[in-house]
């Protein structure tokens, strides 16, 4: 599978990454190399195996329904790059 400039642009868009035009061809080459490397898995017959869900082989542990957190906005907002009162602030979202 060879990655094109367009695929790089699409992956960058999906991942919300601004990629400079000048870097796109280089990235296409690098990503192609990685995909080329991982595609050796195609040779392995996995028809009789289930995907591994967890190496610990356990099932979900659950917690009791109780309020154990909250009412500490300073712990939540302490690192906010921009805030107004107890809200996070971001550039205006146009819906």
């Amino acid at each position, binding site marked *: 599978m060879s990655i094109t400039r367009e695929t790089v642009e699409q992956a960058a*868009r*999906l991942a*919300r990454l601004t990629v400079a035009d000048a870097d796109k061809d280089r990235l296409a080459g690098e990503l192609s190399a990685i995909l080329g490397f991982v595609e050796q898995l195609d040779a392995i017959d996995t028809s009789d195996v289930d995907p591994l*869900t*967890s190496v*610990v082989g*356990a*099932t*979900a*542990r*659950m*917690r*009791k*329904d*109780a*309020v*154990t*957190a*909250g*009412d500490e*906005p300073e*712990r*939540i*907002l302490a690192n906010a790059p*921009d805030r*107004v*009162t*107890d*809200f*996070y*602030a*971001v*550039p*205006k*979202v146009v*819906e």
Partner: protein
Amino acid sequence: MAQTIKGQTGEWEIVIGMEVHAQVLSESKLFSGASTTFGKAPNHNVALVDAALPGMLPVLNEECVRQAVRSGLGIKAEINLYSVFDRKNYFYADLPQGYQISQLYHPIVGEGELTIDLEDGESRTIGIERIHLEQDAGKSIHDQDPHRSFIDLNRTGVALMEIVSKPDLRGGDEASAYMTKLRSILRYLGTCDGNMEQGSMRADVNVSVRPVGSTELGTRTETKNVNSVRFIRQAIEFEARRQVELLEGGGAVVQETRLYDPSKGETRSMRSKEEAHDYRYFPDPDLLPLQLEQGFVDALASDLPELPDEKRARFQAEYGLSAYDAGVLVAEKETGDFFEAVAKGRDAKLAANWVMGELFGALNKASTDLADSPISADSLGGLIEAISEGTISGRTAKDVFASMFETGKSAVAIIDEQGLKQISDEGAIESALDEIIAANPAQVEKAKENPKLKGWFVGQVMKATGGQANPAVVNKLINQKLG
């Protein structure tokens, strides 16, 4: 009796599937210990994991699992003992993790069904595809600042059940009946408060149209987050008509997401500049697969409350109510319970009439609801008893009811205070009647010839007893004596 649209080229059928998001009733969030209470100050109901701080991990709330299973049982669905939480990846300001934890490949509840009751008395069974558990997003506020949006994560991570119907609904009436019934069932179960104004239940409505007789599905649109039963109906009616006009004009329906604007009664495209979403679902590696025991499910099943359909059947059988009356009374669990408290050991039909007639009317007029009714079930039961036992007449009862509603006093107290008790004592009525007969021999003769004139005696007896004689007893005695 499906609704259709008469177009210029023929008749069109409307095909609807609904994805209802219902907020799970629980104290804390699906994966965090933050409270689910509505209306807190911004970012106060937020745990570290809700804000997706680095290194924070989700831990599943067992109550949310229980509630999802109970909801599944309530729609007679298959419960999947094995289910998996997946990540749905997309970026949005009120989605701190950059993904929503949901269930795509292995939902907790599989296929079920629900019976809707239509206004013409018919009912239809609607298939349900699945219920899965997922996280709610936060809230973005756009109107507080000209340049910035504000983000509040209080809702972030609250548990939702996404209840996905099959494309079995055929018009706005059915869709709103479906939403109403689903809401009723969830409220009976206590798994969702059904509070649509607060967003506890909202629907994504998938609409397509096709010529009547066609079996192929047309291209559908999805109208997102419609939050009232009325809006669901309006959105569907608008959207179906729009699609018919498009198709008949030679156009094509574009598969897209739309928004309903209640102020205009229209849906409009949420044309995003982005290409189609690619959510890159994969099993959340922070959460192990959920494995339930059959015994756990069985215990919940045996503990399920009576649901509206069963209750309606029982009301018809036990109280001899009509299907319609029973349906009205069971729609809300509180109403059914109230009615039963009034009816128990009393005249059930009378009770149904008074609950649905006078009481609902008065509550409506006072813009209040049953929960705040000034007349308790017990108290209304007292009134029913007074009527049944002949203590007061039906006409007097209406006045008593009005006083009860105004003062909150019991029927007995009002009847006593205002001296409204009927005289049903035959002896007292007979002696009054005898006096009148003795004093009016001429009238007696006329009445014996023309029975229509007996009415004059009734009037005289009522006058003599201050209007409190039981009319049935008066009539009986007059008939005996003036035969």
